[in-house]
């Protein structure tokens, strides 16, 4: 299956892309996917959203279509 990886703010700077399609297995976690495509990225500094909901880095993707990397937010 293909999952869209979205990167915002500092995560986008670090990854060098805003959006990328990645081939994944439903049993894989966001942590596993990121370890594969961006092994240098420090995940502790950010949260992950799966299909627009905050999730643990270790939850299986299941049928998800979107993973988003959410650095500390600063709206307002």
């Amino acid at each position, binding site marked *: 299956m293909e999952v869209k990886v979205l990167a915002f*703010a500092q995560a986008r700077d670090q990854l060098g892309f805003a959006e990328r399609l990645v081939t994944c297995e439903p049993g894989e976690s966001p942590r596993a996917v990121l370890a594969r495509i961006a092994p240098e990225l420090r995940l502790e500094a950010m949260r992950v959203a799966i299909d627009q*909901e905050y999730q643990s880095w270790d939850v299986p993707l299941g049928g998800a279509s979107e993973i*988003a990397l959410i650095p500390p*937010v*600063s709206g*307002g």
Partner: protein
Amino acid sequence: MEKQILFTTEPIVIPALALPSREIGACVEFQGVVRETEQDRLLAGLQYEAYESMAVRQLERIFDELSAAHPCAAVTFIHRLGWVPVGEASLFVRVLAAHRGESLRFCAEAIDRMKVDVPIWKRVYERHRTA
């Protein structure tokens, strides 16, 4: 409650106030404005971005949760994206309720929660480099 959520790259235009019923007793409006000085740096402005679809979903949930604690009739939330120069508003929130306590608490807590959980980011652009 009525929820209106908008992101815009244009200067925020405050919508005309329309009271949804004759039982509205309180209208609170908050505007967040870009300041020139932030942590001893002189700014020209801020650059905002958002993960809009998720931000809308998070805001709707926050508003529903807050409305259970502080009953309010309507909320309007407008956040500007892209470049916002010093002196212009990046955020507008309007809350309508029967009573002032609820409207003020809803407004304060909505902004507090936005700053923790809603995927919106700002970047600082300095006016003068100091180093």
